[in-house]
């Protein structure tokens, strides 16, 4: 059984195939590039570890030591090179180089000495390999014990496993993996233990067949994970708040700030730093969680990054979530096309995909459905992209449509979708995935996206029309209101003037009548004087007209009688005079 060295990065720790200790020696030269003398470090490094550490801390310690061991070995390899600075630091390396110097100075070692040295080196390498194996077993135990603890849903057929092994071996050997073979196997199911490596293969395969995503707007796209997690994120508080609310029942994630939560925090933090525009969006944690159940931190991050960018999941998490709304529209149309009765039924009770399918899309089923089911969806997404979520969602509604149609009432339907539907039997899970992979919806998805945009434009256009009309009407209304106000003001002023004028008129009228009476008295007096003075008084010119007037208008007979003098005033000339008088008075007033 081949071990792990040729496997692409990240899958090392998951392959748990045993190999015979006896073969280790044989495999030695190929396994590590470490030259024999440096392997002398192994025993000292391995000593602190116990062969059967039970508590998790002990396990981790072993892993840590083994990690240190590798590091030391790497350093030592570098130490053999002339320029290495590690030479001085490591006494071991110092010894090695002095040995080398001694070798150069001393005569050649005897055959026996060389044999001893080789023997020692081989023994130490055997020890080292045992260590590695132990580490492997512990990691596996950690994984199977804490992480990958879920039932396959649906379970894979036995023969799939061996076929997967063959395919993976062939891939590891650098041979081309045919897309049809890969697809066929994914459709048939992925065994839990092989899943992490299969995901790597799927990522690799996708990269091979698709152009790299456009990431010019993402400054940190090429920044390494380790560099990212060293920085601080402005989304820290939000991420921390949600750690305890992501898989709170799962043993790997439930303990506050346990290793699961810490890994989750690191991965989410790294994503928020990788793409500050996206930052942190609720839902991402669940996806990261599923990945972490299968792969170590950095590898999970890389998988998540692959899902967000090349597979374009990123858009649905963007701050305005408009792509999610498009997806909900597309899904709604698909339900209409594929299950029109169910669509009508759900519409009747106002159960829209926005109400029930949001978590399906944002957490890829992981927040509500069994992990085995969700992991299966992840397989399909890595193969087909987000389209897989549409397919699985449609298939889910399909197999439950009769039950759903029997429910009357929005709450009952929602309750069923949320709690009953995720309680899938293995048979129904099988049905769901069988139906899902049979669906061909790519063209529909595309046309419904276009349709959404067209509709959106219309909707946007019509209110803006209405708005502009409304604005026009509003402006007109304002204008008219202003005019009305002005007119009202004018009216008020005018009526005030009328009032004033009427009053003045009254005053003038009374004055006129007063003056008239005075005048008539004067006329009478003038006449009297002209008639009754002994030597015919000379009437001054201004008053003579009274006499003329009186003569002209005086009726025949007793016109001269002062008692009738008033009659003089009754003539038609009076109003004329009054008017003239009134006019002159008015002019005076003004």
């Amino acid at each position, binding site marked *: 059984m081949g071990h792990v060295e040729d496997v692409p990065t990240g899958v090392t720790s998951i392959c748990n195939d045993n190999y015979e200790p006896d073969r280790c020696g044989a495999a030695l030269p190929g396994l590590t590039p470490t030259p024999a003398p440096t392997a002398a470090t192994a025993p000292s490094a391995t000593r602190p570890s116990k062969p059967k550490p039970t508590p998790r801390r002990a396990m981790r310690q072993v892993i840590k030591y083994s990690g240190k061991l590798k590091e030391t070995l790497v350093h030592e390899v570098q130490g053999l090179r002339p320029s290495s600075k590690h030479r001085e630091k490591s006494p071991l390396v110092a010894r090695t180089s002095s040995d080398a110097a001694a070798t150069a100075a001393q005569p050649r070692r005897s055959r026996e000495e060389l044999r001893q040295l080789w023997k020692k080196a081989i023994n130490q390498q055997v020890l080292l390999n045992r260590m590695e194996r132990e580490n492997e077993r512990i990691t596996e135990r950690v994984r199977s014990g804490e992480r990958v603890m879920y039932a396959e849903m649906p379970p894979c057929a036995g023969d799939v496993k061996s076929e997967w092994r063959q395919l993976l071996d062939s891939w590891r050997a650098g041979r081309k993996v045919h897309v049809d073979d890969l697809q066929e196997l994914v459709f048939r199911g992925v065994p839990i233990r092989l899943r992490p490596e299969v995901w790597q293969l799927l990522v690799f395969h996708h990269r091979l067949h698709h152009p790299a995503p456009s990431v010019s707007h993402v400054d940190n796209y090429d920044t390494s994970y380790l560099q990212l997690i060293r920085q601080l994120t402005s989304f820290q508080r*939000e991420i921390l*708040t*949600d750690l*305890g*609310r*992501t898989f*709170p029942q799962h043993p790997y994630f*439930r303990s506050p700030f346990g290793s699961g939560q810490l890994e989750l925090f690191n991965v989410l933090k790294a994503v928020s730093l990788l793409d500050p525009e996206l930052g942190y*969006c*609720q*839902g991402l*944690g*669940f996806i990261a969680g599923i990945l972490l159940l299968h792969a170590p931190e950095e590898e999970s991050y890389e998988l998540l990054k692959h899902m967000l960018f090349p597979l374009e999941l990123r858009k649905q*998490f*963007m*701050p*305005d*979530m*408009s792509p*999610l*709304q498009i997806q909900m529209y597309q899904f709604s149309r698909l339900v209409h096309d594929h299950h029109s009765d169910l669509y009508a039924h759900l519409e*009747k009770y106002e159960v829209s995909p*926005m*109400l029930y399918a*949001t*978590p399906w899309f*944002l*957490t890829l089923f992981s*927040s509500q459905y069994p992990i085995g089911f969700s992991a299966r969806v992840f397989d399909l997404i890595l193969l087909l992209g987000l389209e897989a979520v549409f397919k699985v969602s449609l298939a889910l509604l399909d197999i439950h449509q009769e039950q759903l149609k029997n429910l009357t009432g929005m*709450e009952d339907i*929602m*309750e069923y979708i*949320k709690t009953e539907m995720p309680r899938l039997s293995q048979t129904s899970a099988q049905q769901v995935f069988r139906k899902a992979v049979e669906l061909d919806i790519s063209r529909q998805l595309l046309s419904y996206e276009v349709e959404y945009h067209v509709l959106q434009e219309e909707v946007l256009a019509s209110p803006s029309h209405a708005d502009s009309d409304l604005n026009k009407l509003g402006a007109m209304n304002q204008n008219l209101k202003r005019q009305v106000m002005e007119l009202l003001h004018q009216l008020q002023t005018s009526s005030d003037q009328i009032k004033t004028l009427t009053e003045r008129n009254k005053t003038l009228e009374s004055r006129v009548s007063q003056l008239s009476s005075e005048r008539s008295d004067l006329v009478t007096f003038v006449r009297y004087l002209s008639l009754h003075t002994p030597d015919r008084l000379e009437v001054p010119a201004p008053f003579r007209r009274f006499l003329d007037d009186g003569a002209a208008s005086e009726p025949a007979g007793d016109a001269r009688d002062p008692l009738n003098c008033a009659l003089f005033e009754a003539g038609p000339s009076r109003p004329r005079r009054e008017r003239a008088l009134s006019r002159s008075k008015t002019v005076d007033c003004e």
Partner: protein
Amino acid sequence: MSYAYLFKYIIIGDTGVGKSCLLLQFTDKRFQPVHDLTIGVEFGARMITIDGKQVKLQIWDTAGQEAFRSITRSYYRGAAGALLVYDITRRDTFNHLTTWLEDARQHSNSNMVIMLIGNKSDLESRRDVKREEGEAFAREHGLIFMETSAKTAANVEEAFINTAKEIYEKIQEGVFDINNEANGIKLGPQHSPAAAGGMAAGGLGGSQGGGCC
């Protein structure tokens, strides 16, 4: 179960202020500090009695994160009451009330009763927003105000029930047209005419003055 009225409520407010816990305390009378994140919307329902009448409260519990606002907006439609929640130990959640209120006013019907809730009143030692500040905000914006604790259940019943009473009063006054479902009120089956889907039509024995169009 039969009911005279059904009121739709929506719970809004920043993420982590305790919206889901308030709902759970009200519907199940228990506090669950460890629960799943609300993605999208969750539902709860409970029957209460007002003025001798059975009233069913249908409560929509929404996701609080900023990104979800565009989705939450579609949930306001047809809500008769809203619980606008902030966390008394986190001032930023109080500072965001204005934008929440703008959103609520813009996307709901104008008669929706809004109850302002300062949650986590059990954490007095960590208080960051004074009670008076909450009261002042409520007064200024015409809201009802209460401080609650989803943990100890203090005022939780009152918060939901007082909101319902306010809605009920509005119905009695004829402010709410119960025949228009967009107001977030439905008549119970026994009050509706026998016609199928008749919830949208019919009246309640003239108990209110709101006319049907």
